[in-house]
């Protein structure tokens, strides 16, 4: 097959690779980044999972790692609600199917074994560890110390699970030893406080890992064996391993003959962020570089917070590591590698690091993706983009994420789509939000850019600076078969109608879009995500900011994985926060608020910004009802929520219309 145009531009990424006796078509490894929670509670793989893995197999990666299975019948290693199991041959038929999918796609098939140790025993009243060291987060089971018999049994269970994976048709096996999982907790001087030959010195702490590697290599000498190890645990304050110790452990693993080390960052309990939107891409690359230097004869795979194939290609070219290990970016866009190969990188839906995937998994829900509404629904034909039986002329009101997701999806199905937008470009309220985002505005702006590119490629017609109202609709009467209202939401200023001094209120969305300017002393009413982003941005720019929230807490509408970020910013920036506090009146130079007991406080304010409550722009539904054959709505126009719901609803309507 002749090389595709993008392959020449990314020559290192698309260079053939090798692991053990297996040839890989390129240097991209699909990482088992987190479990899907699509399976049964007792560890069987479901049709939903099989449909998903078929998509994974088709991603075009040279090596594909199937998500981690727990290896023991008791479930001590089980860390996720619907994690797959591999402790018995009864599980094999579905694993065989997955291995076949991967081979049919031309990739090397690797099965991960995940014994969660300290984070395991999800269905039990305990978890197992080298020593009884309680966890530092309130998510887990009380620990039990493993005896030497337990250690021997556990190694045996790993070997049996590895044999089963090979029996199912996988080419190799990966054991994950990062995040604080079992192997990591033996390696760590924080969690391993044993006084026998498995504890104490780093040599002793690494013994469990070395015995495990030896046992699997002896059982399966012809098959590649990969171990995932921390380059940094980020557990320094707990007395965890230093980076030097992490690399000593890597050298131990390499010395035992592992075929590949997958370098990762951080424990679940680490107080520091490692892969979120606030971490710049490439931030952790130094760990992979050092791993390659310390273990030059072992393949190094790496991809933590390295979502960009161009960056990865450059790293590979410089010899910083051997395989780009990637997962989350391919949850967002399973076509990422193909688009790179076909020189269509501008079409990629980027992972924006919202960590919706993990937020859900840690709440025992199936993972989903903000950017990929079809993720997890691959088994449902209703979510597939299929040619429309009747091609329709569609008018979309609003070029925010909901409207644009609908428009591009409908256009892919053959509909003739026109979007009208009051503003002068695509993005809606997301633009203002992104402009003021303290994390990485580029992530959010990538969503806008994606829609700009796709609208152009799909021939979606865009009319900017156009207000949707009954007069406009009358002017286009009978020209459209369908109208979709995706006009978003606004701050409900009517909620302040009874407030003295309300004429001084400024709409948060006007501040976000730059239509209104804030003074030096600002009070923001509403500790929701709109209010927070504005408050943080203004405070960072030097304003004195107070945040007033009538509820118990701020950030209640923020995704759990990012809630901490906002609460930390609020504290770091010194934003005065008053919860359980209501607005009483606004004076010419201040805001008077009252706490739950009615005690009043006066806060000096040059500008008073209303960030909540939010209200859907639903009026158009009533006005347009008799003007068009089909009238639909999606996104915040139905109920104010956020980008995730907007994109998902836009897509669901787009595949159905």
């Amino acid at each position, binding site marked *: 097959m002749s090389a595709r145009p993008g392959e020449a531009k990314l020559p290192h990424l698309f260079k053939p690779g090798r692991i053990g006796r297996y040839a890989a078509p390129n240097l991209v490894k699909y990482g088992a980044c987190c479990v899907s929670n699509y399976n049964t509670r007792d560890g069987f793989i479901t049709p939903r999972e099989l449909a998903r893995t078929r998509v994974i197999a088709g991603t075009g990666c040279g090596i594909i790692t199937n998500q981690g299975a727990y290896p023991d019948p008791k479930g001590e290693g089980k860390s996720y609600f619907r994690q797959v199991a591999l402790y018995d041959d009864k599980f094999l038929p579905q694993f065989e199917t997955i291995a076949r999918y991967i081979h049919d796609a031309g990739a090397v098939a690797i099965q991960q074994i995940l014994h969660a140790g300290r984070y395991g025993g999800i269905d039990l009243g305990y978890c197992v560890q080298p*020593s009884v060291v309680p966890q530092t*987060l309130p998510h887990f089971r009380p620990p039990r110390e493993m005896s030497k018999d337990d250690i021997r049994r556990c190694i045996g269970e790993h070997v049996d699970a590895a044999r089963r994976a090979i029996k199912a048709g996988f080419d190799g096996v990966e054991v994950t030893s990062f995040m604080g999982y079992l192997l990591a907790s033996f390696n760590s001087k924080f969690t391993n*406080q044993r006084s026998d030959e498995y504890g104490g010195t780093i040599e002793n702490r690494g013994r469990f890992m070395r015995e495990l590697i030896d046992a699997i290599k002896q059982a399966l000498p012809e098959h590649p064996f990969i171990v995932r190890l921390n380059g940094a645990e980020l557990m320094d304050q707990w007395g965890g391993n230093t980076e030097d110790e992490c690399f000593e452990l890597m050298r131990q693993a390499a010395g035992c003959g592992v075929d590949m080390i997958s370098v990762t960052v951080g424990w679940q309990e680490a107080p520091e962020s*490692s892969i979120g939107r606030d971490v710049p891409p490439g931030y952790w690359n130094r760990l992979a570089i050092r791993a390659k230097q310390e273990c030059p004869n072992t393949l190094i795979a790496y991809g933590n917070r390295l979502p960009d194939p161009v960056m990865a290609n450059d790293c590979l070219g410089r010899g910083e590591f051997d395989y780009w290990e990637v997962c989350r970016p391919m949850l967002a866009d399973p076509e990422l590698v193909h688009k790179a190969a076909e020189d269509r990188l501008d079409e990629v839906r980027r992972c924006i690091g919202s960590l919706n995937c*993990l937020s859900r998994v840690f709440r025992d829900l199936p993972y989903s993706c903000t950017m990929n509404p079809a993720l997890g629904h691959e088994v449902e034909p209703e979510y597939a983009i299929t040619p429309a039986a009747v091609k329709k002329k569609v008018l979309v009101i609003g070029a925010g994420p909901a409207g644009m997701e609908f428009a591009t999806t409908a256009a892919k199905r053959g509909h003739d789509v026109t979007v009208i937008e009051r503003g002068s470009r695509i993005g809606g309220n997301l633009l203002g939000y992104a402009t003021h985002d303290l994390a990485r505005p580029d992530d959010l702006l990538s969503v806008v850019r994606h829609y700009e590119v796709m609208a152009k490629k799909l021939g979606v017609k865009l009319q900017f600076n156009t207000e949707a109202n009954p007069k406009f609709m009358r002017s286009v009467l009978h020209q459209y078969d369908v109208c979709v209202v995706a006009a978003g939401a606004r701050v409900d200023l009517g909620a302040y109608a009874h407030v003295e001094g309300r004429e001084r209120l400024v709409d948060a969305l006007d501040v976000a879009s730059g239509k209104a300017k804030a003074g030096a002393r600002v009070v923001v009413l509403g500790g929701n995500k709109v209010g927070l982003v504005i408050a943080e941005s203004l405070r960072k720019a030097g304003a004195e900011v107070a945040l007033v929230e009538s509820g118990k807490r701020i950030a209640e509408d923020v995704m759990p994985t990012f809630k901490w970020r906002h609460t*930390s910013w609020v504290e770091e920036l010194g934003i005065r926060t008053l919860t359980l506090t209501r607005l009483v009146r606004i004076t010419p130079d201040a805001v008077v608020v009252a706490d739950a007991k009615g005690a009043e406080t006066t806060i000096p304010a040059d500008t008073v910004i209303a960030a909540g409550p939010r209200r859907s722009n639903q009026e158009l539904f009533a006005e347009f009802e008799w003007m068009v054959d089909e009238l639909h709505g999606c996104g915040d126009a139905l109920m104010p929520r956020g980008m995730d719901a907007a994109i998902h609803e836009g897509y669901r309507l787009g595949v159905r219309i």
Partner: protein
Amino acid sequence: MTTWQDVLAQHAHLFAEVQPGASIALAPGSPPRAQVKQVRDPVPMQLWLRGPDRMAVVDGEYRGLKSLVSDVLFLPEAGALETALAHEAPLSELKRELRDGRMLVMVMRSRSELRERGWSEFFEALGLPFQGTCR
């Protein structure tokens, strides 16, 4: 001078659901992680103990993890509790100390037990559920 008893009283709403007998142990020492031992020589600790109608601050002895009956163990570095108390918002300062590693926390019960014992609101206020590297 403000005491921890005052602070707990000021934030009584965070402890409203805490069950009688439930407690948090605070065992200062430097470095904090040195206290992470099954058995150790006794050192003074502070207990935030739920009584019949309010949280009470009680003195106690920390003898290591094995004999600890509290639901949660806070390990502040020497002086960290005093620093927090001197701050205008002591609980906010405690939260900062947790993030900075000046105070460590060890969870002695399962999540469901902690929820049943009424700690959710306090943990939420400290931001504990949202720590973790997968962010």
